[in-house]
């Protein structure tokens, strides 16, 4: 019962979150994100791993890198989706 309420609440929150989400990643292609990430992200500086930043900060930095690295909007969303999917609970950062 408790779990059910928890799940429903989470789903509701996530559902609401999506529609209000800053970056719409629903059509992002994680596979392409991984490919472009490994083709682009080590060129200018040492690679910054998904664990380096929290999820929220990644949205800002990917917008920043979109401008710096001349990425298309779709590439930016694909890479962001890949980075967020690669984050694990062990990323002991805030």
């Amino acid at each position, binding site marked *: 019962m408790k779990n059910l309420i928890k799940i429903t609440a989470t789903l509701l929150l996530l559902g609401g979150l999506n529609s209000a989400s800053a970056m719409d990643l629903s059509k992002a292609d994680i596979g392409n994100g991984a490919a472009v990430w490994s083709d682009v992200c080590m*060129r200018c500086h040492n690679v*910054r791993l998904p664990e380096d930043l929290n999820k929220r900060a990644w949205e800002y930095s990917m917008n920043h890198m979109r401008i710096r690295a001349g*990425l298309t909007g779709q590439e930016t969303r694909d890479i962001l989706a890949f980075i967020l999917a690669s984050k694990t609970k062990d990323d002991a950062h805030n």
Partner: protein
Amino acid sequence: MKNNLKGITLMSFFASTLLSTQLFGANIEQLAQDVELLKANLESNSKSGFQLAGYAAFDYSDKDFSGVKFAPIFHAKYGDIFQFEGELEFNVDSKGETVTELEYAAGTIFLNDYMGLQVGKFMSPVGQFVQNQHPSWINKLPATPVGFGHDGAAPTSNVGVALRGGLPKMGDIRSNYVLFVANASVYGKVEDGAIEGSIDANGRTSSNGAAPTIGGRYAINPVGNMEVGISGSFGQISDVDQSSSTRDYSVFDVDFMYNIDAISLKGEYVQQDIGTSDISSFDTEGGTWAAWYAQASYLFAFAPIEPVIRYSDYHNPELQRNQLALGLNYLFASNLVAKLAFEVNTNEDSAVPSDGLYNEDILRMQLAFGF
């Protein structure tokens, strides 16, 4: 027997209480985690927001603790249609005073997937070093190549508008572009009451009577982690003490970057040309400010140690110099780097007195952190 039974019942009762307490504990922990997650979700559940990044660097050279730099970057955005980025650079100078500079402050409206319209003060889109290698945690050596610092051959920043973005793929090849219109740079720097012939290509909020600068960059990525770019700009430039003394102004640049596993190669050539002016009070001739550098580094697999070698060369109407820099970096993390470097500086122009300024060999150390 009865007592035994009682004992067993009690024991199992205790055990189950213990177990349920444990379960309960785990539940609470799980709940706490979920609450944290929900809190985090709620926190990011807004369209506009703000985030801090930046870098810091501490230098030692020539028997002095020679540099302290703190450069916070502010990012603010509205959804994925608008991004603001601003970098402040704080430095302490040799007199103990704090020097502040607004390195860049620009807002970008993402018009569609291929176009961002940027307004404000942005790093010069010409070339790569100034724009993409200047942060200390990125630059693999403690100092910039000769000619790529402020007042060198490479323009630093612009105030204006830029249209930029990534282009649709051509086969497997990606490419990107920048087009910009900005206020003109200014020629001449007032130093000890006299005017020195140097180009001040830092973004300013006036063209000082000259026509605006129009420029762009186009770059392709023939293979992964490689970029070749060509860029430039043209317009006018006027004298710092006399806005009616306008001249032709143009910039040309080619840049190259390639990362192959542990090897990183970078290079760039930049040239700024200034025309003549009959009415100038300090220099009627104008001339060419040109610089180039080539750099290679290798990150060992057995330890996070990275040797770097860089050669750079700079000449303008008044000087001709070059530098060979050898460095050894220790990467505590990809964004936390300790650097040790030795620079061999050579003044090639015998007409310029060798006051040690461009002839000295320097040992530099730096700790750089990007966040």
